[in-house]
């Protein structure tokens, strides 16, 4: 399968002159078409920063990002789901989902259809005319996902999207996301600090650590998703990644 996104020796630094600090370097990540990759790591290793560099919100210092998708003017190749859903409070749900559709070349009818379709896809057609404050945290986060899906991206970047949500709602949202993923075949790069979540969702778990950070380990998860919530094999994998993370934390601290 072809990689839809490939970074080559990517590096990012913040600050100027002597205060300059390299956050990560030599970062080589590739995500295949339709692949679900989860990224965990030491805090401060630049997980969120990586997503922002890929979506061109922050400039990189070195290296390159290749995005191999068919460029069409009626779509955006990449879309991001944020940690807090960050809906615009002055826009109705419909208007929030339209945000990324404004400025790409589609007709008003097509825009309306995309909004309706994504609302159906996430299973919230009834909230279309409400204001964000009238929705629960879980619903808002689903609208955040709908806003990203509406631009029909090839790559979905997700920055700890379920981090601020209670455990029960989070489990529901994870199931929902897997369903949407299997229906839409998007490639996903999903950042989380929750290792169980990373192992549960991902085809592959990447571990970011060190100072400056790089990918220190990679765990392919071949277990069938139906067997992932519980069972020895799943728990063993979670333990394995946790051990890897502890090692990475120790390595990061020694590097100072």
């Amino acid at each position, binding site marked *: 399968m072809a990689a839809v996104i490939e970074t080559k020796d990517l590096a990012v630094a913040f600050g100027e002159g002597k205060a300059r600090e390299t956050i990560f370097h030599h970062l080589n990540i590739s995500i295949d078409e339709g692949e679900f990759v989860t990224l965990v790591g030491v805090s401060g290793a630049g997980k969120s920063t990586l997503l922002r560099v890929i*979506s061109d*919100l922050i400039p990189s210092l070195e290296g390159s990002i290749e995005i191999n998708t068919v460029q069409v003017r009626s779509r*955006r190749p990449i*879309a*991001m789901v*944020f940690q*807090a859903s*960050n809906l*615009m*409070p*002055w*826009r*109705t749900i419909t208007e929030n989902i339209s*945000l*990324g559709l*404004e*400025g*790409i070349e589609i007709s008003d009818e097509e825009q309306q259809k995309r909004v309706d379709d994504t609302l159906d896809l996430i299973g919230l057609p009834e909230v279309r005319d409400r*204001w*964000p*404050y009238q929705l629960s945290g879980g619903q808002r986060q689903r609208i955040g996902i709908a*806003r990203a899906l509406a*631009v029909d991206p090839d790559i979905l970047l997700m920055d700890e999207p379920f981090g601020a949500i209670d455990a029960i709602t989070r489990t529901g949202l994870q199931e929902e996301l897997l369903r949407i993923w299997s229906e839409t075949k998007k490639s996903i790069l999903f950042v989380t600090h929750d290792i169980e979540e990373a192992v549960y969702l991902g085809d592959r778990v990447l571990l970011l650590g060190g100072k400056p950070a790089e990918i220190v380990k990679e765990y392919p998860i071949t277990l069938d998703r139906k067997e992932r919530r519980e069972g020895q094999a799943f728990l063993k994998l979670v333990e394995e990644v946790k051990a890897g993370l502890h090692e990475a934390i120790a390595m990061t601290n020694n590097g100072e």
Partner: protein
Amino acid sequence: MKPITRYVLSATGLVGFLLFWEGLARSGILEPHLLPPPSTIPPALVSEINEGIWQSMVWASLRHYTIGFFIGSFLGVTLGVTVALFPRVDASQAWLARVLRPIPPLAWIPFAIIWFGISETAAAFIISIGIFWINYFTAMNAVQAVDKDLIEVARAFGHRTFPALLRKVIMPGASPGILAGLRAGLGQGWMTVVAAELFGIQGIGQRMIEASGLLATNVVILYMFSIALLYGISDYIFVSIQQRILAWQQ
């Protein structure tokens, strides 16, 4: 408290105050010339309206007020937003604003007369000054307080030019603060309107000075209440518009 109880208590407070005042004047404790009883105000209103004075004074003041309000608000919001958006403009105004801001609007009266004469423009100018500063600072703060995360969201979804960010995030995000500033200016404007007319420009202020010279204190009070009424109406209209615009707020 039930809304009805609140309503009754509010009305009782106002009626009680008027009765107490009437009693003080009638009993002779207060000289009627110093503080006329409220019962003398309705006849004053009738005679002022019959002579056409009330209408023309209110109309004149309303004109000064409206012009001053729009000019002061427009300049205040525009400059306040500009300062918040451009750090260089912000730096260049910091000391200037500190020098000019504490000068009360009424201190500009001599210059208003020298520049514009005893004219409606002079009155509107003085009214606009107070309104300008309120809007200048509230608009500046409102823009500075716009959620930076939402700007990032807009950029992530392809809106990267300055006009697009201004239209899609900054102005809507700052709108509650800007509207609050406009409302505060609406009140401030009525406070300066009387003073701006004291030096002879036709309007409520001028009529009040005239009446007090004749010891027609009931006429003075009539116009005091007229201002309160005008303020009440304009604030009510403003708040209903504001609520429509900000329907998205909790």
